[in-house]
């Protein structure tokens, strides 16, 4: 698995790569999306979370928004996020969020990094029950089903 780090908007305008290169830098799937996706094959019961098999991960910095992150803590499936981050090469996120958030910036930074800065560019999302792989190409997961899965 390869991992690359990209800096955020401050440097963007100075490092203007050719358009085709830039498009590739942009493409990604982040764990905020992974936290919503489940297997939609007919009849499957154990459909979430999808296991991540990464081939290419990019770390891309985005602006830190602590208020948004605090709102998100209750809405996220925490285990899916921790496991997803770990599978993408980031094991720092604690197994449970802390009980008091107010002064814990270091935790919020790890949460921010896991949820919004780890980008799966190439790989698969695997159904926990059937093992069916949904491929991720150029950062876009393909959740389209075959005829017999509908």
């Amino acid at each position, binding site marked *: 698995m390869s991992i690359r780090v990209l800096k955020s908007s401050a440097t963007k305008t100075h490092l203007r790569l050719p358009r085709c290169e830039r*498009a590739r*830098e942009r493409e990604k799937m982040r764990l905020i999306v992974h936290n919503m*996706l*489940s297997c939609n094959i007919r009849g499957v019961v154990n459909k979430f979370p999808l296991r991540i098999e990464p081939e290419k991960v990019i770390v891309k910095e*985005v602006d830190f928004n602590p208020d948004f992150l605090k709102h998100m803590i209750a809405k*996220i499936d925490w285990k899916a996020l921790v496991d997803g981050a770990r599978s993408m090469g980031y094991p720092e996120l604690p197994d449970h969020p802390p009980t008091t958030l107010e002064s814990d910036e270091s935790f919020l930074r790890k949460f921010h990094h896991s949820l919004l800065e780890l980008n799966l560019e190439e790989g698969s999302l695997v159904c926990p029950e059937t093992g069916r792989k949904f491929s991720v190409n150029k950062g*876009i997961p393909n*959740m*389209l089903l075959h005829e017999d899965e509908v």
Partner: protein
Amino acid sequence: MKLKQLEGLLGDLEQFSNPKVELEQYPTGPHIASRMLFTAENSYGDITDKVVADFGCGCGTLSAAAALLDAASVIGFDIDPQSLETATLNAEELEVEIDFVQCDITKLELKGQIVNTVVMNPPFGTRKKGADMEFLSAAMKVASDAVYSLHKTSTREHIKRAALRDFNAKSAEVLCELRYDLPKLYKFHKRKEVDIAVDLWRFEPRQN
């Protein structure tokens, strides 16, 4: 950001190069897109710092508008890989973050309460009958706060009834009536341009 500025930025986006008639691929013009998202944020606070999903995002016009209005996270869903490629390039040009998922909206199973707002310009159901209702049903299952959608004015009563009775809507309101000017995109279009009356709807789902 001012409305005019938003409209200007959206006007620069690339649109469908080979639109697929069976998917009812029509670009959402910058005039409608900017007003739709501007209203969603200024009147209801449904965009800035929220998680916004764009169902049937096509080339990503509504997604781009949401991102430009500082949504915390924008996710565009579409079935067509070529559109998603164009949408990715558009996001790149505007230097905004948008995640994309390729899927059939009507078969999608999204878990949890992460999405606050769904915005969409769904198919009207002229090619695949009932497509507009399928999109609305899907959106109402996913959004925790609000759904903004465009539907033909001629379907107004039908939509209102279905939303309130079948799709778990607490409220269903037409925010305004717009003229959607469709350029001659497909061979079967006889007139050079045609104006369709569409309603901009806001639906609020009941809390589960």
